[in-house]
């Protein structure tokens, strides 16, 4: 008797579970159902106010994001997603912190291959061609058209959009973006008899300044290398007039006389002029060296600005990178991508989220919290940004430099091309190869890596 009743309980439980599953399934598969009067009556008032037909349908989004600068940014992101749910009660965003840019790329790609991609993710802007080759992302042009098309895009800085677009389509929306800037220690400038209001403006000036600033225990200048050799090479290439690759990501132009001149200048700074440490300087220790006063100037991402501002015990300045033919810096950082093999309704919701995260006010706050450049021009018109930059004008340098900025190295087979450039830059800096030979070798290897895409 007892076992009989037990069985009955189980049976009932099973039925209930099945029924509720069936319910959920029919809910999500019947989009028009939500527009029926009964359904919208059950929706909350604020959702109804947005006037969206699907507004009361529950949607869960998974959002992958990396962090590559200091500070408690996980909390900031979580707060932003909660804010979003407050405005859109039917959409819940689950933020998943996925480590560095590289880790995030690995996790995302693993998801894509197992047909369980995230719904929306922040990935390096240079992942564009890899994601396209894997058929992982959707173009955003239809969504952008809803918002006003060209006029919506025109609020974003063109230099940031350069890494988002190919073949006339826009695939990602800029989010945490940077350029490289020159940080310099004003106290050391004074000690060396240099005017702290006048950072070096040209390659020649930088060399002269660095010579004056170099003495026992202090380097004049440090340029990080490990992992970012290609990025720093781009600064010299752009200052000499041209970027390293074509917009369609199928060709690289590495062994041009201009680039050889740039790499020669860079290696000379350590080998001949002795104003910079020799060999491959570490990306992470360069800011520490600067904060410790071991180097008077450094090339680094503006994403580190808030970190330097908080920790520098001396007066420091930020300026454009010195020019040769022109000023120049590549952009860097992460964009929002929306994934392909997911429910179209989720894509719609993901777009709403992307739009929300890049609204002017929010972009302004994000820039203040991190040091990244706000991606929209209108963000600099907001009250909070005006107030912040009035007392801390250094925050405007990277933005102003955007006029001379260009896309970060991004090609098909990007990982391999980037590594090739990194390896050869390091070979030149450590003296294994002459700059001209190193770039020639890089060109050959990159051409081989790109051959399959040029058929």
């Amino acid at each position, binding site marked *: 008797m007892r076992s009989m009743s037990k069985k009955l309980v189980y049976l009932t439980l099973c039925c209930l579970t099945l029924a509720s599953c069936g319910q959920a399934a029919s809910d999500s598969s019947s989009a028009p159902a939500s527009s029926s009067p009964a359904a919208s009556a059950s929706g909350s008032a604020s959702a109804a106010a947005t006037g969206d037909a699907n507004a009361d349908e529950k949607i869960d989004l998974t959002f992958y994001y990396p962090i590559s600068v200091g500070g408690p940014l996980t909390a900031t992101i979580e707060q932003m997603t909660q804010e979003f749910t407050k405005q859109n009660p039917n959409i819940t965003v689950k933020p998943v912190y996925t480590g560095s840019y*590289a880790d995030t*790329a*690995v996790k995302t*790609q693993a998801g894509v291959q197992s047909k369980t991609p995230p719904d929306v993710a922040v990935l390096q802007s240079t992942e564009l*061609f*890899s994601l396209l*080759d*894997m*058929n992982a992302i959707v173009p955003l042009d239809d969504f952008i058209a809803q918002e006003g098309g060209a006029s919506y895009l025109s609020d974003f800085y063109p230099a940031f959009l350069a890494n988002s677009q190919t073949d006339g389509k826009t695939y990602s929306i800029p989010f945490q973006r940077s350029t490289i800037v020159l940080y310099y220690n004003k106290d050391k400038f004074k000690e060396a008899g240099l005017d702290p209001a006048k950072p070096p403006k040209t390659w020649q000036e930088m060399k002269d300044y660095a010579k004056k600033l170099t003495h026992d*225990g202090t380097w004049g200048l440090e340029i990080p*290398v*490990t*992992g970012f050799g290609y990025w720093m090479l781009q600064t010299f290439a752009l200052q000499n007039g041209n970027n390293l690759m074509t917009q369609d990501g199928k060709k690289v132009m590495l062994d041009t006389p201009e680039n050889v001149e740039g790499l020669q200048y860079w290696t000379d700074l350590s080998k001949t002029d002795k104003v910079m*440490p*020799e*060999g*491959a*300087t*570490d990306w*992470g*220790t360069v800011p*520490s*060296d600067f904060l*410790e006063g*071991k180097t008077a100037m450094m090339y680094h991402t503006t994403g580190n600005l808030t970190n330097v501002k908080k920790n520098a015990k001396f007066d420091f300045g930020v300026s454009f990178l010195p020019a040769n033919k022109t000023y120049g810096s590549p952009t860097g950082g992460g964009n929002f991508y929306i994934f392909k093999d997911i429910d179209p309704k989720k894509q719609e919701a993901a777009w709403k989220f992307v739009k929300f995260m890049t609204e002017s006010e929010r972009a302004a706050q994000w820039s203040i919290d991190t040091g990244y450049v706000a991606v929209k021009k209108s963000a600099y018109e907001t009250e909070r940004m005006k107030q912040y930059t009035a007392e801390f004008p250094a925050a405007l340098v990277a933005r102003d430099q955007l006029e001379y900025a260009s896309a970060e190295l991004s090609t*098909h*087979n990007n*990982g*391999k091309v*980037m*590594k090739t450039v*990194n*390896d*050869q830059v*390091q*070979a030149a*800096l*450590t003296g*294994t190869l002459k700059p001209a030979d190193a770039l020639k070798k890089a060109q050959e290897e990159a051409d081989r890596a790109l051959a*399959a*895409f040029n058929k």
Partner: protein
Amino acid sequence: MRWKTNVFAWLLLLPSLVFLFLFTFYPIAKTIRLSLYQADLATSKPLFVGVDNYVRLLDDSIFLKVLTNNLWFALGTVPASIALAMVMAVFVNKATRGIGLVRAAFFYPTVIPMIAAANIWLFIYTPEYGLLSRAVTALGASDMNWLGSPHTVMWALIVMMVWKEAGYFMIFYLAGLQNVSPDLYESAYVDGVSRWTIFRKITFPLLMPTTLFVAIVALTNSFKLVDHLMVMTKGGPDNASSLLLYYIYETAFSFWDQGVASALTVVMIGLLLLLSALQFFGLDKKVHYQ
């Protein structure tokens, strides 16, 4: 009756076998299969290419460099860490005052996480204010960018690896030493044998089973290093510190070239099997089991 025992035995083994198949044999089979395909960003569907991936490896200058690096790295770390472990074990095996503290100090590198260890060493090797730079400049030598020069980076990694590994192997030797019968030492002592001879003729041979085990583990570890490279050098400068597993990681997860990454994995497994077999069958004749 006999088959019943057999079935019972298999049933007991079943859970482990399931996991072994699921997480070891199946992935190995899958990897071997994938290594015969071109599966990269340029091909939307994997394309059967036979042994092409392997042939391409012979042409890949980075692969050859990484392989040579790895052999040097193994040669630099394995004997050194084993010798150091043995010396440390003999030293801490004696009952003296404060021995617990010394043992803890020797063992401590093993307990801290790899990433933390890598960060500590990153700053030891930092030019200008790193511990090592301070030391050499205090001695009047000139400062170096230890991790940034292709000539020193491998040595820097070898020293760190020996530091990290020796304490771990010490534990095995300590266990081995506790198993050696004190009678042997007593009779040797009575006969007036010198301490060096005691070590050479009694301790060392009786530790051989431990040495065999430790040697295989050490060799495998020298091929397994990846975390430190990620934190400290990213394989640079110009691949001077890149090792096989790191190259596999790069090929798989930054070049997205799964075919070649699989081929590399197969090569690595083959190499490890070969080396372990050589050690096992070569050394086994010299091992005294009690």
